[in-house]
């Protein structure tokens, strides 16, 4: 599927060299609400978000990256790039030393201040909701003058997602599910980016939208809802919790920890979203993927 994706992207790129080129200077409002002007097409980019690194590479401008954050690890190429720290401990000096003409940051860090003072163009691009994954891909495409590729990428992502959705729609039973993202315990609301994926993967989230996007939940609420499926925690842990041994999911063996690799994918609102969805759907409905 990856190859198809790259091929499609490349094909579209070839077809649309002239169409929809970005004109610079380009002024846009970033996720911190600042108006930022790019004087020319950025050639030396530092990406401080794993999902941004992935998107840039999917748009075919991997070679413009001169540095990435510590957590960027896909595609393999970015692991060879200099590491610039994480969200809470970014290495400002290292970033400045790479002489980037654009640094793409998360809106939660504090990089914008010192880097702007150092005369470096900073943009916060932070996909959070399901829809933003696509809108931010298009924005990144505009920024690096790869608008056509971005449109093609979004189209192919949506097509891959539709393929999974068609499968899960045919599922005879959609289990009620509790998805735990943190053992304290925190879960995901249906409107969050991960909640959207859970629904598309063919499960019925037991968390109501009114509880918020990433709510801390009362354990007795889960017991009362009695989900048919528990994701994100292993059966042993669930069984040890007071009262949880009465939950249907445990009795029927439908408690599944998310494998590390899929978990990483699910936390990356980027071009591998369809893969994340497919992985999740496979976990929930193995019978559909035989």
């Amino acid at each position, binding site marked *: 599927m990856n190859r198809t994706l790259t091929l499609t992207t490349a094909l579209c790129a070839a077809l649309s060299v002239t169409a929809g080129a970005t004109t610079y200077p380009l002024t846009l409002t970033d996720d911190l609400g600042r108006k930022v002007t790019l004087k020319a097409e950025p050639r030396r980019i530092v990406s401080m978000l794993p999902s941004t690194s992935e998107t840039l590479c999917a748009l075919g401008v991997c070679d413009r990256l001169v540095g990435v954050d510590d957590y960027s690890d896909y595609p393999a190429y970015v692991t060879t790039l200099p590491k610039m720290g*994480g*969200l*809470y*401990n970014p290495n400002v000096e290292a970033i400045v030393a790479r002489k980037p003409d654009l640094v793409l940051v998360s809106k939660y860090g504090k990089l914008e201040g010192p880097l702007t003072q150092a005369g470096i163009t900073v943009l916060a691009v932070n996909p959070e909701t399901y829809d933003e994954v696509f809108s931010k891909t298009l924005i990144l495409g505009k920024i690096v003058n790869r608008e056509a590729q971005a449109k093609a990428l979004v189209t192919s992502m949506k097509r891959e997602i539709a393929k999974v959705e068609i499968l899960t729609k045919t599922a005879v039973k959609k289990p009620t599910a509790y998805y735990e993202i*943190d*053992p*304290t*315990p*925190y879960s995901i609301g249906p409107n969050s980016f991960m909640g959207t994926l859970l629904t598309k993967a063919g499960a019925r989230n037991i968390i109501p939208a009114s509880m918020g996007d990433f709510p*801390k939940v*009362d*354990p*007795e*609420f889960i*017991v*009362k809802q009695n989900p048919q499926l528990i994701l994100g925690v292993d059966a042993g*842990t669930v069984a*040890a*919790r*007071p*009262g949880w041994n*009465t939950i249907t999911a445990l009795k029927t063996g439908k408690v599944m920890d998310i494998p590390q690799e899929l978990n990483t994918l699910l936390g990356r609102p980027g071009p591998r979203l369809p893969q994340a969805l497919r992985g999740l759907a496979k976990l929930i409905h193995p019978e559909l993927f035989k």
Partner: protein
Amino acid sequence: MAPAAPRPQLALPLQVAGLALLLLAAVVLGTGLGSVTVPPAEVLGALWRGLAGQELAGNDVIVWQIRLPRVVMGLLVGAGLGVCGGAFQGVFRNPLADPYLLGVASGGALGATAMIVGGGPRPLIPAAALLGALAAVSVTLLLAREGRRLPPTRLVLAGVVVGSVLSALSTALLLRGEDRAREVLAYTLGDLGFSGWREVAAVLPYVFVGAGALLLLARALDTLQLGELTARSLGVPVERLRLLVIGAASVATAGAVAYVGIIGFVGLLVPHVVRLAFGAGHRTLLPLSALLGGTLVVLADLLARTTPLSQVGIVTTLLGGPFFLWLLRRTRD
């Protein structure tokens, strides 16, 4: 601390009965209310079926296996912290002393943080917290020691510094394991979630031994309020008493910290309220602090479960802080 001015006082049995009733009300409310409301008759039915060893289903499970142990845990921890707070304030003759003073909380937090960030098995987290808490107290005692003496000022200073250093280490660890931050945060804000009967059984001996010992030391603590010299001349072994109180309070607090994390303000606030309402004698203060501490934590947890405040430690601090300030202003002459 100056001896409290004489004030009209109810007889002790009446006071105890009043606070016990309050605690009972808290327990009934805490067991009946939550994200699922269970009518009183059903609560009683669930209790009966649980005691009789019958099969539990639906709301019975919630009442008997989830809510009741959680309420009992809150009661235990609150009672423990209340007694420890009263004893600490007495032995240091410092109204700001609380059970976390000697680095107990920071040590527990460091142990738990190391375990959580290091990805250790969950059942070992309380053990790590307990170890951290007891190690922190030991270091504080060693640092504060002056020959065979344990001067209170040195103890408090050493405790504060040990606490700060350990907190810094916890923060450093936390920043290295960002993705576990929420779990560590939950611990440091105090959380009764997932307290089952097994956890209650694990905490019970610590609180029982620790708080029990403190109750036995109440008379000696009263004598200490007359001043160190007077106490000595009356035959109270002051240094040994100090060590005993610190040891007993640390055991009780460390046990609580290990399982439910750090629940702020209970140990500081509760003895003050009791002292203002019922007088300062430790033979009244300590048992009443246990009752009121238990009530406070059970009610705070009920609020935590049913509002977005979400964690008991947040509620106790949010309610306790302002109340304490109001009390301070009201009683200033």
